[in-house]
């Protein structure tokens, strides 16, 4: 409802605009949001000035002939404005544009926030450039994107914004860990953290030894194909098959290895897998 008020006032003031085509009220044709300025008026007596813009309507009682001063906060919203000075003797009007001021903020969308290592073009960064009043800066601006991983290696790309938006795609690093993704326009910077996580295990190898009537199974440290340790908590499935019966256990990796115990059965076949990756098999000769 609130946003309709300027439109309604604009409609009401349209006849005045039409009648005031020949009158002159000299506003700058183009000014930056947040700029203080003044403009002269002509005539005598008092009048009412209306300035209708995208964010609202400004109404001010003025003395004709005096200059009209506007503060820095009077026109914060970019867009097209119409000024109408209504007096008893005449009506004057002017039109002008308020454009965004210099970039003051970057809203930075970095996706995904977590992805596997070595993923080509896997990270996307989109920057929306705003001035200090939240106007989208439509003029092309050079935007720098930098992705720095834990080893200090940095990928950089600079691109120009189109209609206030700039975007890039980048590769995830080979080394797992948090990477800092930064977008900057001039001295305005915004940072996001992208977690680069290990991929699937490259191989899984288990060893076994007897412990009473149980067989203790343990994997070697599990790493992905780039050498990163597969995160703790990743499930490793052990399966023991023996004479048509089987025993299974899903074990989380702790401190790089998965460890468990199963019944010790002579001749049992023990296998291991994690997700879609299979490991080695053991033909157990010990046990009962």
């Amino acid at each position, binding site marked *: 409802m609130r946003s309709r008020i300027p439109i309604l006032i604009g409609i009401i003031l349209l006849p005045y605009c039409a009648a005031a085509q020949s009158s002159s009220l000299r506003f700058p044709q183009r000014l930056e949001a947040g700029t203080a300025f003044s403009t002269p008026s002509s005539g005598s007596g008092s009048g009412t000035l209306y300035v209708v813009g995208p964010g609202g309507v400004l109404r001010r009682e003025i003395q004709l002939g005096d200059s009209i001063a506007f503060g820095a906060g009077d026109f914060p919203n970019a867009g097209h404005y119409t000024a109408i000075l209504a007096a008893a003797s005449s009506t004057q009007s002017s039109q002008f544009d308020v454009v965004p001021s210099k970039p003051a903020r970057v809203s930075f969308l970095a996706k995904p926030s977590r992805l596997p290592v070595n993923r080509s073009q896997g990270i996307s960064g989109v920057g929306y450039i705003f001035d200090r009043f939240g106007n989208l800066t439509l003029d092309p601006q050079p935007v720098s994107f930098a992705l720095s991983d834990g080893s200090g290696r940095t990928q950089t790309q600079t691109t120009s914004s189109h209609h206030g938006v700039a975007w890039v795609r980048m590769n995830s690093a080979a080394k797992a860990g948090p990477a800092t993704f930064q977008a900057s326009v001039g001295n305005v910077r915004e940072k996001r953290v992208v977690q680069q996580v290990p991929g699937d295990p490259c191989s899984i190898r288990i060893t076994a030894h007897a412990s009473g009537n149980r067989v203790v199974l343990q994997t070697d440290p599990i790493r992905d194909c780039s050498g990163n340790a597969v*995160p703790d908590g990743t499930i490793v499935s052990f399966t023991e098959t023996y004479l048509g019966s089987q025993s299974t256990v899903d074990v*989380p990796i*702790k401190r790089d290895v998965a460890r468990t115990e199963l019944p010790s059965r002579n001749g049992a076949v023990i296998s291991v897998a994690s997700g879609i990756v299979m490991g080695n098999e053991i033909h157990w000769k010990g046990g009962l």
Partner: protein
Amino acid sequence: MKRGTLLALFIALATVAMVIAGMLWPDVTGSGVPNAQAKLMGSATSPQGAVNNLLQLIARRDWQSAYSSLANKSEFSESEFTRDLIGNYGSLRTYATLDGFDIHPLRASSEAAQIRARLRWASVVGTFDDSRDLRVVRDGDRWQVEWPLVKEARVPPQVIPVNYLRWDVIYRGAEDDWGAQDVEAPHVRIVAMHPIDRAGGVVIMGEILNEDVVPAFVTVKATLLDTHGAALASEDSFDKISHILLPKQVSPFRIDFPNLSLSQIDSVRMQPFSTLVPASADPVIGIESQTLHPVPDSSLTGQLVNQSGQIVNVAHVIGTFYDHSGQIIWVADEYPSRALLPDSPVPFQIPLPADVSSKVGSYRVIASTFSSSRFQ
């Protein structure tokens, strides 16, 4: 008129014959529905009556009277008897009620009888059966039941060191800039799906993999579409799935659509959903001695072994059954009624339809657990 009279006469004679047959050769098996208002027979004058009385007392949770009526109460205490029936450590039995029972005499003499009692317990996750072979002995003019106590495992007081692994999550705050990304939902993938016609309905079965490095709460939604692409029905996986999946963990799922057939369906739209949730990597449950039994008792049996120090109050066992080509042909589950204590095996039995049992080439079993106030 004449035919009607003959029919009436035949029905009357048949009824009289059946009444006489029932009196001469009574059905010695029986079933009971616990009734709080039912009067007990007092001193049981038959083995069946004694068992019936005992089970009615158990249904009323009148442990003291039930214990007092036993012939072998000197062999165990009342608390041991109660613990046998309702479990311990907040297990499924603790919150279950006896919903009904069947009794089947196995053999009888003038001094003793053997009766098989099948107790049906109702719990929040459905009913479960507890079958006991009861010996009933004569004591003068009355019969008393000898209760076959199943002693629940006890774990001696001890400290079990555990390398505890847990994920906690900090979500995006209300004050954050709209561009600030929230924590990413876990990446999950449906790795198998198989629809079948069964029992007058459609059953969608499959497997879902958490391919991320964080735990996920998962559900699967299936929508059946007709030839015009219109939705015929839509259902979520509910109980035949392990909702919490740790990294690289796979869960089966089964979604039932009653009163539909595959001939009505053109395609199925599958939608996996995942949410990042705090979770714990413990407890670890070993599923040992899994054995497939053919008909007539077609089922998969095994033992759950809690390899952690934490007591598991309720466990959920889900079995995925594959044919010889590796296709999923059935997903079934069971909730063992007893709590899982550290290193104390608890048996489970997943029933299998007879027609499925003969086709099973391989199977895979997973267990999810509930401990105190936390789902795992």
